[in-house]
């Protein structure tokens, strides 16, 4: 497994806006995308969210999308980000023909399903309006994204809740290292739904104010939505195409906390293993890491568990770390990809983004980056932890 995995393109859409430029600007000027609910049809107006600031109609217009794509928010967000990634890597039709698309999602077409579920229930079996249920599953969204970006060689969908996109990136890297493909379009997409907003609400882990990861007073998550994709490519292919790499995916780890379906262990066993494996694969010492883009959801349980895992590796001298979820909201299945793009921007533009909204330290634990600041950053760990203890860590490094 000596093959290097380069990142030669990226694309993103989130509450911070559409595209790399808007994202970078928001991060540098510490502008959060979290706001009151505007587009999601929900009674929970008290819960702030990181919505993409486009209605479905506007997204459809942007993409010139027709039914059913025009009704499927996960798909439209995915197409916007994937197309930006493909363009940024200057992939030709032929390049795409030999590429894999690996996408992470859990929501899939649930936003559309939940809007029409009542119609299905109200009708007798033989007149079921079943056509509208056809787009619910995760794999369907990946097919529709693939169809919009060109003829790809293979597709699949990883679905591990909040680490889905990170795991899509890991499979893509393994496909490249094994020589199955030279190029993989990897990432994830997730739209807000009543289904998971209410689901998280029943777990009582949503904050009614803007989320404050790693703050003593934190009480939970603000859910967000969005999509991001990276173009992973082997050196030979990037060289042949004459494309300059943005960064390198140097290491990755996936481990299971094996503790509880919706809670993390006190000592962060899964997180510790995922980060340790990533460091080992990257052949880096913990002190080589300049910044950690933490999972940092803002729940009391996650942040304490993640800090415990970090301290097991770095002891008392943690590198710079922050959670960017107070910018974007927790974009669940897409978060691994959205925060990978953010990490690559940090490498390219040499800064560590603030953990905005943070005020008071958690007793006996380290303090995150409080102000977006210039910093020499060579290696970044990006963490994504999902329900069921599906924990994954990715290490992005400067090229050289």
């Amino acid at each position, binding site marked *: *497994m000596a093959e290097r995995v380069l990142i030669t393109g990226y694309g993103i859409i989130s509450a911070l806006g559409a595209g790399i430029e808007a994202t970078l600007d928001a991060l540098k000027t510490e502008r959060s995308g979290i706001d009151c609910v505007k587009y999601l049809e*929900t*009674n*929970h107006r008290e819960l702030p969210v990181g919505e993409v600031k486009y209605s479905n109609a506007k997204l459809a217009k942007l993409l010139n999308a027709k039914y059913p794509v025009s009704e499927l928010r996960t798909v439209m967000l995915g197409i916007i980000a994937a197309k930006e990634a493909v363009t940024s890597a200057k992939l030709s039709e032929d390049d795409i023909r030999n590429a894999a*698309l690996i996408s992470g999602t*859990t929501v*899939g077409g649930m936003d559309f*399903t939940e809007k029409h*579920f*009542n119609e299905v*229930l109200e009708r007798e079996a033989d007149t*079921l309006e*079943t*056509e509208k*249920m*056809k787009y619910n*599953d995760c*794999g369907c969204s*990946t*097919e529709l994204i*693939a169809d919009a970006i060109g*003829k790809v*060689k*293979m*597709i*699949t*969908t*990883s*679905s*591990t*809740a909040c680490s889905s996109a990170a795991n899509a990136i*890991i*499979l893509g890297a*393994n*496909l490249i*290292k*094994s020589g*199955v493909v030279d190029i993989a379009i990897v990432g994830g997409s997730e739209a807000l739904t*009543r*289904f998971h907003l*209410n*689901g998280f*609400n*029943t*777990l009582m882990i949503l904050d009614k104010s803007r989320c404050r990861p790693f703050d003593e007073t934190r009480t939970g998550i603000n859910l967000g939505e969005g999509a991001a994709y990276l173009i992973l490519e082997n050196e030979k292919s990037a060289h042949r195409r004459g494309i300059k790499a943005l960064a390198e995916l140097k290491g990755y780890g*996936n*481990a*299971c*906390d*094996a503790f*509880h*379906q*919706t809670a993390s262990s006190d000592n962060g066993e*899964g997180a510790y*293993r995922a980060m340790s494996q990533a460091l080992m694969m990257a052949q880096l010492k913990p002190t080589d890491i300049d910044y950690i883009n933490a999972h940092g959801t803002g729940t009391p349980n996650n942040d304490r568990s993640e800090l415990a895992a970090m301290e097991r590796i770095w002891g008392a001298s943690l590198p710079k770390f922050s959670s960017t979820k107070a910018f974007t909201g927790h974009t669940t299945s897409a978060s691994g990809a959205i925060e990978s793009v953010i990490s690559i921007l940090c490498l390219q533009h040499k800064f560590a983004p603030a953990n905005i909204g943070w005020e008071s330290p958690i007793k006996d634990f380290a303090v995150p980056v409080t102000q977006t600041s210039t910093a020499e950053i060579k290696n970044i760990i990006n963490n994504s932890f*999902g*329900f*069921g*203890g*599906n924990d994954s860590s990715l290490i992005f490094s400067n090229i050289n």
Partner: protein
Amino acid sequence: MSNKCIIKSIAQVSCQQPLSDEWLTSPILYDESYAAAIEPNFKEFINPIEARRLGRVLKRALCTSLSALRQAGLNNPDAIITGTGMGCLENSEKFLLQLAQLGESCLKPTLFMQSTHNTISSLIGINIKCHGYNNTYSQKACSFESALLDAWLQLKAGAIKSVLVGSHDEVTPLFAKILKRNSPDFKLVSETSVASVLVAEESAQPNQIEVENVNILYRPLREELIRHITEPAVVMLGLNGNESNDRHYCELLGKVSGNPIMLHYKPIFGDNFSASAIGFYAATRLLQTGKIPEFMYHSKPAGNVIPSEITLINHYEGNTWSLIKLKKH
């Protein structure tokens, strides 16, 4: 990429006798269009208090997984990789129903907690305290192959030595109706839970079954598919008796020379997003026993066939195709 990927054990729960190979000699035949899985004796694997908390697909997945691990004499694999087309469908559907009927208040957390697709793989991880690599794929009828491909890549590369790979799908009555109407491709709709332990070996021993290759192709040209079929071919196809589904296979095999021997499994095991996993199980058993029951033939050649290689081919609506090549050493 030098290791061989060997099938160490495999277990199934389906509309045939659970955790059993009885179907080889006396398959249960169904006239209905929907056949639920026959439940095994869960008590052998799960304590009753835990079982009460778990949905059907979770109980079955745990049962087939623990059975495969026992057969393989393995407590803790290096990885758990799972496919599921619809995940914990029953819980998702119930949560949707509550949302529709009760609105956005008074909802209970249990259904949501067990509604994400990765609940299955995590449950197995939690149950056997396995901290290794854990991943879940959900790609319609190609979910199992996605999990298998991930496992195969990592075994070949030496990143892991053993892995529990499975695919699990439950079908609710409402979903069965939706599936029948939206995808007439599915003739006998059923439920599937298959788990298998695969291990990396430097070289294969006699009679071991190797997963020689796994390919997933999206909207491939027929020529691309044919490249992966070695002649003289014994192919196990996702034929299910429905013309709109079956014609894709017939067109493809029509272009393969040397009269390929065509086998099927969906007529007795039914169809769902995890059905190809039961094809994998059935093919493994045919290779192990060296016998092909009459009802497995789609086209019966003259004379006796003792297969040493089987290529499994499956597709969904002609778009996503998968090919798995199994070889008996």
